[in-house]
């Protein structure tokens, strides 16, 4: 058995990679993928702590997070499609007008 702290450190690094991806990339799709990666790393933390304490609450929390992330992907990709249809770009630097 490896210590839970290793997994917590791993998920912290993955979270940071996702955050840097959100900051660096300008393509809305890749920013979205980075957000998914960050959600996933938090799920990994929840599962690791559920394993640490022998308590299933963390796993159920992660399950709910997966459901919410699935909804978020569906709505977010629909918004990206609407933006592309309207402005013909996925570069978020060009989508800066609130009135669209």
């Amino acid at each position, binding site marked *: *058995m*490896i210590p839970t*702290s*290793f*997994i917590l450190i*791993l998920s*912290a*690094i993955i*979270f*940071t*990679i*996702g*955050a*840097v991806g959100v*900051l*660096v*990339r*300008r*393509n809305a*799709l*890749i920013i*979205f*993928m*980075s957000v*998914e*990666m960050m959600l*996933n790393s938090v*799920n*990994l933390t929840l*599962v*690791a*702590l*559920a*394993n*640490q*304490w*022998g308590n*299933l*609450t963390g*796993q*159920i929390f*992660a*399950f*709910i997070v*997966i*459901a*919410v*992330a*699935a909804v978020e*992907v*569906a*709505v977010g*990709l*629909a918004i*990206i*499609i*609407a933006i592309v249809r309207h402005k013909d770009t*996925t*570069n978020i*630097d060009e989508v800066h007008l609130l009135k669209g």
Partner: protein
Amino acid sequence: MSFLSFVILAFLALLTALGVILSKNAVYSALSLLAHFLVIALLYFELSAQFLGIVQVIVYAGAVVVLFLFVIMLIGGTITPVSHKSRTHARIGASVLGALFLLGLMVVLFAGLPSGGAPVGAPDAGSVQAVAGPLYTTYLLPFELASVLLLAGMLGGIVLALKERKSVKTKD
């Protein structure tokens, strides 16, 4: 989980995570994301969360990445090249901010690491039967609310992505 399998999985997870944010082509990013989700699913299995591992494969690898690929194919994977000169400063700033953020996370982590010794998770702690118990009793309300959320998300996705028709037939 043996130490060797953890090291291999952690290395693969970091490699695929970097592949997502460093690929030039959005399709390669999506495929790296697929590999990343599969590696995380293997980590779930190693952490005796079998049910969540399966859910991860079905929902993330099966549905989310396929949806991403559909959208990339729909709007075209070609990414308009951005001027590199203006982006260099932002890139350096983002990397510095990321390093600082990671440092802060590590400080918090090492200050509050669980000192409970070895993990106590039982081998079948994450089986379908074990997860279903609390999910349908203690946490029934969030579970039902998630179904309402899924319905709302489905309707929202359809409304947002539906192509506007120029000529709407009105019955009157």
